[in-house]
């Protein structure tokens, strides 16, 4: 039986781009951070600012950051497909650009959600995991899904306009670190946070995602979080539309 084109591309994305080292870096690094940062900071971070142990605070933030992990993989696949002319090769075959983008999106979502599962397993022995209601679970997965679409759209758009691997991967790394560190993934924003930094943190979509996931984990998911998800959905729509539009003018030919 012939699979639909999107699923064929999805299988190809997984098979062609995943090796043990990539998987270890993608999922091992956040798991490592949960264990090490959680263990090292737990004794020195006051529970008043984190509403409990630091590890319990960190885990939902790291889980939320999986949206970036999935998106980074998509950006990498797209860039390497350009570098090795697979974009040109696939588009000269029986695939539509929309299908290629859909497959990238599915790859992003799959990886983000697999990352969530792995981090949840890593966190289980450290802090246990709350029993989420179906609504809270949906909120967590929806937030991460929308965030993954937002970042994937952003990275693909950037990847379309840049013709140098060095520049692309530098931008990707900077963006990744900037977005993760200037968000509420690792630390809360309190009244002691400088106003300027607070403004930057709250202009970062990852902050809203981390806060929404954290709220769900702490069973206090409310209307503010719904607004956060709404904003994330809007941003995801904007970057993904930008990726779709930019994709129509993707240039073929050598990139370095």
């Amino acid at each position: 039986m012939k699979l639909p084109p999107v699923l064929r591309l999805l299988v190809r994305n997984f098979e062609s781009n995943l090796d043990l080292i990539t998987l270890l870096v993608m999922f091992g690094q956040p798991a490592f951070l949960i264990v090490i940062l959680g263990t090292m900071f737990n004794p020195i971070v006051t529970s008043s600012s984190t509403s409990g142990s630091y590890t319990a605070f960190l885990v939902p933030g790291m889980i939320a950051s999986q949206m970036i992990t999935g998106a980074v993989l998509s950006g990498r696949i797209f860039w390497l497909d350009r570098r090795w002319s697979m974009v040109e090769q696939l588009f000269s075959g029986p695939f539509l650009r929309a299908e290629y983008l859909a497959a990238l999106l599915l790859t992003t979502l799959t990886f983000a959600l697999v990352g969530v599962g792995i981090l949840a397993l890593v966190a289980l022995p450290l802090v246990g995991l709350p029993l989420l209601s179906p609504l809270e679970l949906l909120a967590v997965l929806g937030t991460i899904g929308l965030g993954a679409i937002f970042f994937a759209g952003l990275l693909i758009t950037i990847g379309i306009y840049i013709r140098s691997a060095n520049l692309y991967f530098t931008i990707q790394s900077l963006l990744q670190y900037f977005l993760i560190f200037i968000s509420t993934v690792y630390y809360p924003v309190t009244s002691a946070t400088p106003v300027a930094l607070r403004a930057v943190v709250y202009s970062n979509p990852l902050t809203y995602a981390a806060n929404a996931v954290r709220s769900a984990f702490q069973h206090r998911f409310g209307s503010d979080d719904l607004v956060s998800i709404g904003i994330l959905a809007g941003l995801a729509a904007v970057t993904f539309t930008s990726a779709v539009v930019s994709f129509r003018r993707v240039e073929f030919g050598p990139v370095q």
Partner: protein
Amino acid sequence: MASTLVAKATDLGYAYRPSEFAVRHLNLELRRGEVFGLLGRNGAGKTTTVRLLTTLLTPTEGSGELFGRDLRSCGRAERARLGVVLQSESLDFVSVERNLTLYAFLWGVPREVAKARAEEMLALFELEGSRKRKPWALSGGERRRFQVARELMHEMELLFLDEPTVGLDALTRQRILDYLAQRARAGLSIVFTTHILHEADLLCDRIGILQRGRLRALGVPAELKRQYRGARFVEAEFDRAVTPEEDRDLDALLARNAPEALEVTRGGTQLRFRAPNPEGLVAEVALWAAQRGIRLAKIAVREATLEEAFVDLVTDDGESRLGAVEAP
């Protein structure tokens, strides 16, 4: 007539930037089962033409058809009937063997068929020993063979090969050309770009020559060779070097009998020139030599090679001598 065409271009053009046309006023018909060679210098517009005809680029002017459908509205159905070997390398990050079967999977080829075809391609392109290696670890020639082999993993009606034989040794090149000729005899249409004119001469039923984005010549190789200034060469070799006085005589003879002779080279025992209808002149040269007691070790008239015709055509003054090929 229309049913015998697989692709058609009518005044087709593409500009990467406004008014910077990579291809312009391209008029071309590709027939079912023919091998069509697209020649031209670097940057002449060959790859852009391939991208236009494979729908990777949307024409910015003119029109075209692929399997009878307007190029601008072609989609999956038409592209599913194509095969494209790109000029640049394209690959997945898996072994050579898995690249072949994964590519077949992408094209929806059943697993068992793909497995058998992969074996056939690995043998045909002498890649059996490299099946477990990653494509980027192959030598340049092996990588090129791999590209062609991978594209042949699926069925197609029209195959575009953008410089498929770059970096291949003569034996491998011949083997691939033989295979392609065999596929063409079985009905596959092939569009072939190359810089190796000898192989275009051997393989192609018709040839188009692009210069600065315009199709300057179109025809069967023999026609093209004859088309330009008669383009027949006379090559003579004397049994001794001619003296300076004899050389002046020879010069006068050529000026008198063949004022339109081109590329005249004389020196020592050699004489070589190009002229239309040179048979009469050959007799004059033979008589001239006999009168001076010079024996002709060799004298021959030959057609221009495709390479000579090509060089003649794409020289800088080519544009002033030749117009673009008009719409059929």
